[in-house]
């Protein structure tokens, strides 16, 4: 607790507070603009933090992350298009409420419960991660290997649609991780003669390219560009928070369930807000006393996804800070942010940079408070920005991508990397492959390999310790269970698809 207060003290400077506020506002805008994701926003702003102190830089990035996760609901309601994948489920009931003329109420509910979800997860983060870090300090190569392997199985949850394609993307990610100096022995491999690749493919330009650079190529290929430029913004009125105390109380159970679910999904490596919001909506419907009303414009359908998506933010920071394994795409970029400042997240972070860790906790809480204030105060302004045409926005984003990738090492090579990954990202989208599994593979591949080889060196070639060390064994068992469950559900799906197609013919 004292540490947390010290954390607050370290961010309560005028400059840091201003940066957090600015980050939240920009985050909300980025999140609200359809086609710009939180991941992209954080990636674009990462270069700005190069010249800042770690506390200032990371506070800004976290503010962007939290603002961005919240901003998606504005366009989900007022444009009826989710601004980010984190708000997909918000449109289910939200768009119906808007049609009924309850846009103000829907916005109020969304913002307030986003705040509650975010705060809940921030508290969970602050309480469980020091504890987890203490356990993680005892982890050796066996544990890390098994956790990385387990995290890889999360690819199944990320590969919406085709499991095979998700796995392929994940394997490509692992392959990307091979490039550069091989662990342990230190010989370069797969560098194709580029000395710039000796240190491996740089994570940051790759991420910027995949998530931001690819956008412009995708947009260029879209048809009916004329129509998409002027989006229809719904008019709305709002009084106070837009809903009554009675309605608030009726949602406490739903909000609590969604917050726990969202935080939990956030903690699982690889899964983030985009999974949390849909899962929470599903759970809310399942446990509701009136499941048939979902989709008809009830606030339960907004409370669940909006609480859960913000709750996933704090959750996603847990594995990042305690193990150095990011919980979702955006925390993958935060990981790059840490590295730029020469800090590697993991259990040692808590002993070596305790002040920084608690400053981050404080920043998460402050950012959530600013989010609710900024969202209510600045709503009308944000809505206006939604109408900036994309043909101006995306080329400017591209210029930012160039600056950002160049700034990593001050060399053009990274800009080319960014461009290459922009093309890869575009092609992946075109052929129906997800980008999230790729990132997960890219980050986890090296962790997997280093720890496998380190472990085998320690055990002098014996695989037994991977199974006999208790924590390692537990994760391996869970891994097997997850894999088996996925295979079963995949087989079922394939069978059902066959029946559907046959059924539709007959």
């Amino acid at each position: 607790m004292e540490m947390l207060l010290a954390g607050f003290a370290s961010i309560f400077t005028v400059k840091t507070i201003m940066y957090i506020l600015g980050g939240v506002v920009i985050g909300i805008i980025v999140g609200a603009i359809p086609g710009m994701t939180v991941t992209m926003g954080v990636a674009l702003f990462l270069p700005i933090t190069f010249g800042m102190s770690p506390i200032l830089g990371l506070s800004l990035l976290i503010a962007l992350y939290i603002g961005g996760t919240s901003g998606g609901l504005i366009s989900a309601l007022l444009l009826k298009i989710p601004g980010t994948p984190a708000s997909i489920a918000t449109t289910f009931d939200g768009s119906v409420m808007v049609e009924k003329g309850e846009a103000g109420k829907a916005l109020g509910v969304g913002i307030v419960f986003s705040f509650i979800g975010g705060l809940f997860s921030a508290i969970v983060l602050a309480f469980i991660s020091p504890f987890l870090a203490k356990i993680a300090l005892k982890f050796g190569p066996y544990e890390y290997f098994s956790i990385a392997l387990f995290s890889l199985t999360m690819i199944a949850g990320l590969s919406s649609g085709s499991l095979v394609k998700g796995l392929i993307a994940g394997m490509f990610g692992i392959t990307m991780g091979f490039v550069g100096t091989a662990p342990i022995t230190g010989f370069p491999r797969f560098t194709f003669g580029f000395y710039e690749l000796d240190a491996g493919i740089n994570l940051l330009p790759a991420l910027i390219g995949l998530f931001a650079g690819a956008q412009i190529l995708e947009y260029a290929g879209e048809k009916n560009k004329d129509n998409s430029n002027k989006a229809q913004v719904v008019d709305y009125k709002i009084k106070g928070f837009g809903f009554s105390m009675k309605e608030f109380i009726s949602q406490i159970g739903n909000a609590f369930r969604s917050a726990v679910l969202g935080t939990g999904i956030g903690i699982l490596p690889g899964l983030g807000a985009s999974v949390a919001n849909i899962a929470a909506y599903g759970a809310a419907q399942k446990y509701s006393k009136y499941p048939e009303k979902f989709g008809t414009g009830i606030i339960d359908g907004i409370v669940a996804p909006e609480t859960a998506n913000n709750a996933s933010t704090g959750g996603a920071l847990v594995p990042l800070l305690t193990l150095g394994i990011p919980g979702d795409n955006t925390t993958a970029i935060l990981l790059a942010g840490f590295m730029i400042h020469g800090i590697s997240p993991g259990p040692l972070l808590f002993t070596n940079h305790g002040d920084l860790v608690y400053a981050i906790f404080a920043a998460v809480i402050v950012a959530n408070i600013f989010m609710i204030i900024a969202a209510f105060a600045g709503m009308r302004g944000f809505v206006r920005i939604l109408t900036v045409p994309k043909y101006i926005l995306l080329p400017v984003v591209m210029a930012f991508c160039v600056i950002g990738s160049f700034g990593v090492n001050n060399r053009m090579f990274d800009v080319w990397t960014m461009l290459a990954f922009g093309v890869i990202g575009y092609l992946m989208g075109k052929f129906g492959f997800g980008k999230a599994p790729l990132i997960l593979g890219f980050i986890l591949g090296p962790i997997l390999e280093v720890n496998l080889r380190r472990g085998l060196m320690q055990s002098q070639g014996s695989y037994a310790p991977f199974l006999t060390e208790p924590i390692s064994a537990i994760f391996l068992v869970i891994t097997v269970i997850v894999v088996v469950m996925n295979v079963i559900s995949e087989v079922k799906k394939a069978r059902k698809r066959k029946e559907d197609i046959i059924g539709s013919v007959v």
Partner: protein
Amino acid sequence: MDIKHRDIYSGSFVLLFAVILFTASFRIQELMTEVKIGADFLPKITAVILAILGVTLIFQGKKDLKMKKNLDTQKTQNVLDDKKENKDYATIITLFLLIGYVALMEILGFIITTTVYLFLQFFVLTSRTQRKPLKLAIIAILISVLVFYLFTVVFKIMIPSGILG
């Protein structure tokens, strides 16, 4: 590219990639260590898994195609499938613009290349009716100058300044 065969194409690509990865793994140099697993171990495993996945994808794609064909013969022709994909000149032009942008930046510097790139890119992304050259040119110049000073002066980030710097 037609959408019907995309799984077969991408599956074949994955398979090819896996074969290249596997063969390239043999060229990894390494000191002999006592441990059996070297720097080529995981790449080889990954290559094998990728090959299996690639074949699965081709197989799935073929099966889907067959089912769709069955549907097509029994029902009316699927209109969507029949429609030819728009040849995406805009995407290809954008790609070349980007390559030119990055290639020229080190020589000409950020401000000049960005202004030119933005202007041309605006042009590519707008339809004929939206194109107001003067307005777009002013936006392009303003943005590049503003962004340059914002990053170099306020955020103190290195940007290639080229011949102007």
